[in-house]
């Protein structure tokens, strides 16, 4: 099918973009990579009267590694963030997750910030932002900017804290501290599809290489990314000898996923437990190696 008609706006600056968005209010939609929005328009599941295309606002096409993390501008495409060596050094979980997002051709066009605002509970990047305690920066005409932490940004399936008239200008993914590791594990029906279940994990060790903190954000397990703190369950054991089966059981008990045509609720619960424990185990392993790294220090 084809989209229904809309008024097309092509601002070139951030100021112009915010002005147009303010004018359009609830009838306006931002067009970034279009890789989620255009399918919805084609199927007429969305029919905004004003489309505000930010693809010419080149000042939003930024990837900056600073202030202890990675700040990704609204026009940075998945592929550019995935390819950035500086991002890989500062926050390897981003690249690991991006390689699981759709296919390379979709990643050439889709944006990281667009994926966050789209807020699909099956998407990888919202889970990454959640487990890292990142944030999204929103701006509106005449209203300045506000930073919304990940825990408040995702409000429901395909719903975020972005209000009508607001533009998400960037997202911030904090770097990991020293002696930390991360991993993303998922199972999809076909490589590149949205995952049936998956988990982004971050493990931080103490000076004796025992698990000080273990966090995991699960995808497709609820209306928003489901953040679980497994630190207690990991019981401050040495990374190499933890009881990962107990972790998997604890995750299964904590989540309440829904079933659909691809997976029953029970299967999804089981799979999430397995994947969360696997991601935590790999992250713990990586954290141990991080400690052994000759360079040491924060990455």
């Amino acid at each position, binding site marked *: 099918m084809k989209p229904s008609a809309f008024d097309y706006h*092509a601002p070139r600056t951030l100021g112009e973009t915010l002005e147009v968005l303010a004018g359009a209010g609830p009838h306006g939609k931002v067009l970034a990579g279009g890789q989620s929005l255009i399918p919805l328009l*084609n199927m007429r599941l969305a029919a905004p009267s004003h489309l505000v295309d930010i693809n010419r606002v080149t000042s939003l096409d930024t990837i900056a590694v600073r202030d202890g993390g990675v700040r990704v501008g609204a026009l940075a495409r998945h592929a550019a963030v995935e390819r950035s060596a500086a991002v890989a050094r500062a926050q390897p979980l981003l690249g690991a997750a991006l390689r699981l997002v759709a296919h*390379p051709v*979709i990643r050439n066009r889709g944006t990281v910030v667009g994926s966050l605002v789209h807020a699909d509970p099956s998407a990888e990047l919202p889970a990454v932002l959640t487990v890292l305690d990142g944030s999204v920066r929103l701006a509106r005409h005449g209203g300045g900017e506000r930073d919304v932490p990940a825990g408040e940004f995702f409000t429901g399936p395909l719903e975020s804290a972005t209000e009508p008239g607001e533009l998400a200008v960037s997202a911030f993914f904090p770097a990991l501290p020293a002696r930390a590791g991360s991993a993303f594990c998922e199972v999809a029906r076909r490589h590149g599809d949205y995952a049936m279940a998956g988990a982004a994990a971050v493990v931080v060790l103490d000076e004796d290489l025992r698990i000080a903190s273990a966090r995991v954000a699960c995808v497709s397990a609820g209306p928003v990314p489901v953040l679980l703190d497994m630190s207690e369950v990991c019981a401050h054991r040495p990374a190499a000898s933890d009881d990962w089966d107990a972790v998997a059981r604890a995750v299964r008990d904590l989540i309440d996923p829904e079933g659909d045509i691809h997976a029953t609720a029970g299967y999804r619960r089981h799979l999430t437990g397995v994947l969360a424990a696997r991601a935590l185990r790999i992250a713990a392993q990586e954290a141990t190696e991080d400690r052994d790294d000759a360079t040491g220090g924060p990455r």
Partner: protein
Amino acid sequence: MKTDGRPAVSEALHEITLTVNGVVREAKVPGRRLLSDCLRHELGLTGTHVGCEHGVCGCCTVLLDGDPVRSCLTFAVSVDGHEITTVEGLSGPGGELSPVQRAFSECHALQCGFCTPGFLCTVTALLRDNPAPTEDEVVEGISGNLCRCTGYQNIVKAVHRAAELMGDEA
């Protein structure tokens, strides 16, 4: 005629200029015109095929400033001023087939041919960026393109064969 409380929209036409296969082309399109439809209808380039119109099948893949993208998930007006390469632009000036096209033909990498334009564009960019891909890299590279006929075996073979042909020519 509006039924859903949306404010009326004007459906204004936008004049756009695209460089398609090296030729500067102009078109007048409404904002909602998909690049796939602009190529096929306004510009008469029907080599770009349309299967699903939601990004899944890959038939409509074209090169935007050299990078493969879904033309069904791109508005023509968004890429005003940019360069597009379609399957019609892959062959040489005298119509001789490109190495990728020759390899597809040699290896029987197509049956009905509906998916082929998308594969050819995707693979052309893949081999440009990675002239000697591993088996895994080939499979990952074409994972976003569906083919209902061939079972993919010969397509994978053709990608390796194209890499060989391009190596020989270099």
